[in-house]
């Protein structure tokens, strides 16, 4: 039974929202015709909607609080489903196989459109994993990550345009240029912390975009570069359909490569240094870790993936202009990392798939899609602030004293 006090609370909520949304939802003014349109029906929707919704909201909040309390009191927290899947080989291996087969068959099962957006999603998986090094592992809030993405994309577009270099040469070049720019950005911001760092990186991203927009002689300005070739397959050029499939497989391979490298880095001496830097800068330094070097490697390695992602982007879209590299893209990549779970590779992959594919699938709701996307971000964060897969630390196992064996 729902208690009376609950109903009263919800009534207040619904009254409050009716008041709140009154001018924007109910009144529409046509300043030219001097007509006011009163849309009272909207008020009823809001009232009823918020009344019902407030029950759900409170219920979920209570659930969350209950979970937190249990965690605090019991100490023994049951690992979440995702964590258990990751830990238990018996579940993990078959799950991985299924995902692998699904990924391999994907372009033959689904339409060109599905493959195409999956490529976008995979590019963002790569970007997310790259940014994860900077934000998730090293704890450096970077709001200008898109700059490196742009560097990669323009590297391919311009070097191909001027020198006719092929995709396969420029893919590593894009990564290298990304890394170079990562170091370039890294130097001046070494001293900055937290949100000051965020704003400077934001500025860096904007500077790169503005240069691309304004320096016509270099970048062809806002009209961009078109007819960028798709990657060739042993010298053969492919039809749109085939080359989309081809790019899809390249992306799958690149993602596997990225995951492999990021995993190795994460579990290495350098990966630990990044995490230590994130956890406590002062203690990290006091433990003999070179802060500047660690930060720079994080920026550089993070940016490398963005550079390669940029090359893939240019190859996939066959057109680049500055409109693809706004602060909004940086924000989306950041959302991927945080929503997925900072520092967790699987989390970031899931985050990227959700954040890139969801708006596409929300197209069914046409104009409401960005509205729902916004709600989703808020709801996800309120009810799962640690992200979908919270950071899973590696477990080391020991047999007897001194003898150290390990297990992932």
């Amino acid at each position, binding site marked *: 039974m729902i208690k009376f006090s609950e109903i009263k609370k919800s009534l207040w909520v619904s009254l409050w929202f009716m008041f709140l949304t009154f001018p*924007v*939802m109910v009144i529409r003014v046509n300043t030219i015709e001097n007509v006011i349109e009163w849309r009272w029906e909207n008020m009823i929707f809001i009232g009823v909607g918020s009344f019902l919704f407030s029950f759900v909201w409170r219920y979920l909040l209570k659930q969350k609080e209950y979970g937190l309390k249990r965690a605090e009191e019991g100490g023994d927290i049951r690992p979440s489903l995702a964590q258990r899947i990751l830990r238990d080989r018996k579940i993990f291996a078959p799950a991985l196989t299924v995902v692998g087969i699904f990924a391999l068959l994907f372009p033959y099962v689904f339409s060109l459109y599905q493959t195409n957006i999956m490529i976008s999603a995979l590019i963002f998986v790569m970007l997310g994993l790259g940014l994860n090094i900077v934000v998730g592992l090293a704890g450096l809030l970077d709001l200008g990550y898109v700059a490196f993405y742009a560097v990669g994309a323009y590297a391919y577009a311009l070097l191909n345009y001027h020198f006719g270099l092929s995709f396969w040469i420029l893919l590593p070049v894009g990564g290298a240029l990304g890394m170079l720019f990562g170091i370039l950005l890294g130097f001046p911001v070494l001293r900055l912390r937290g949100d000051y760092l965020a704003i400077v990186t934001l500025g860096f991203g904007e500077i790169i975009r*503005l240069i691309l927009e304004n320096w016509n002689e270099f970048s062809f300005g806002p009209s961009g570069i078109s007819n960028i070739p798709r990657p060739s397959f042993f010298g053969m050029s492919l039809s749109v359909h085939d080359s989309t499939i081809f790019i899809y497989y390249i992306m799958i391979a690149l993602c596997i490569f990225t995951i492999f490298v990021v995993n190795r880095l994460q579990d290495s001496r350098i990966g630990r240094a990044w995490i230590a830097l994130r956890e406590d800068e002062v203690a990290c330094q006091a433990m003999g870790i070179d802060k500047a070097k660690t930060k720079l490697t994080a920026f550089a390695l993070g940016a490398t993936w963005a550079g390669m992602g940029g090359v893939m982007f240019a190859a996939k879209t066959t057109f680049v202009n500055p409109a693809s590299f706004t602060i909004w893209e940086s*924000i989306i990549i950041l959302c991927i990392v945080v929503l997925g779970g900072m520092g967790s590779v699987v989390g970031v992959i899931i985050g990227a798939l959700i954040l890139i594919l969801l708006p596409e699938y929300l197209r069914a709701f046409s104009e409401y899609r960005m509205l729902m996307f*916004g709600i989703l971000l808020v709801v996800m964060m309120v009810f799962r602030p640690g992200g979908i897969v919270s950071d899973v630390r590696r477990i080391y196992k020991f047999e007897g004293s001194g003898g150290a064996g390990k297990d992932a």
Partner: protein
Amino acid sequence: MDYFLELFLGGLTRGSIYALIALGYTMVYGIIELINFAHGEIYMIGAFTALIVISVLTMMGMNTIAILVIAGFIAVIYSCAYGYTVEKIAYKPLRRAPRLSALISAIGMSLFLQNYVLLAQTSDFLPFPNLIPDFTFMEPYAHIISSAEVVILITTTIVMILLTVLIKFTKMGKAMRATSQDKDMARLVGIDVDRVISVTFVLGSATAAIGGVLIASHVGMINFYIGFIAGIKAFVAAVLGGIGSIPGAVLGSFVLGWTESFATGYVSSDYEDVFAFVFLVLILIFRPAGILGRTEKHTV
């Protein structure tokens, strides 16, 4: 020299526009260390509410001064209500969560509010009536600075002074300062931290609404997207001045306004924002906590 003066004044007005939005950013940041991305949207909603009220009242045939007062008042009320609600929904449950989670929640809120207004109203630019009359005594200077600009400048100053007084000398201000220093400690000494945070959001939203009405009336048009662009710039200004500091936000805004104005005037507006950001980077390199920010000492 005239040219310099004109650019100077241009930068000053632009700066005071940024300042009205930056104040809210800096207050919220000062208290809960959150980049309130939705702040720009609160400003936008303030402007929209004002526009709706103005249109309704104009059709009822009220006189301009009364309209200005009523519209401004209602816009402030509604912005405050929105600010309050946004905080309760999107930030309060995240008080103990990682800071970045709250940031993403704020981004989600910003996106939601933008599209809410887009869907409920329109995507088009709407003309916003000029509520600030052209004062006759300003006529001789009109080619340098307009009446609206003077009004904005004065309002910014008044708002800044009021906020400073409020924070320095009232009980609520003391509670705010205590909360920004140490939330747990503040709670221990009997400060209702949740209430303090709510009040901060309400105050920040109120300044945003005042900004919304004045700026919209100066610029002459609004749409659902104005909050985002202005918000980013205002945030840069707040950081430039030293985020968390009220005078810092105003000073940072002026510095940003001047940088942009002089860069445009003497170099080129092509790279206006590039100059602004390069300048920001330079300042932060030499003063890592902004112009008026306290350089935090390592507390070991």
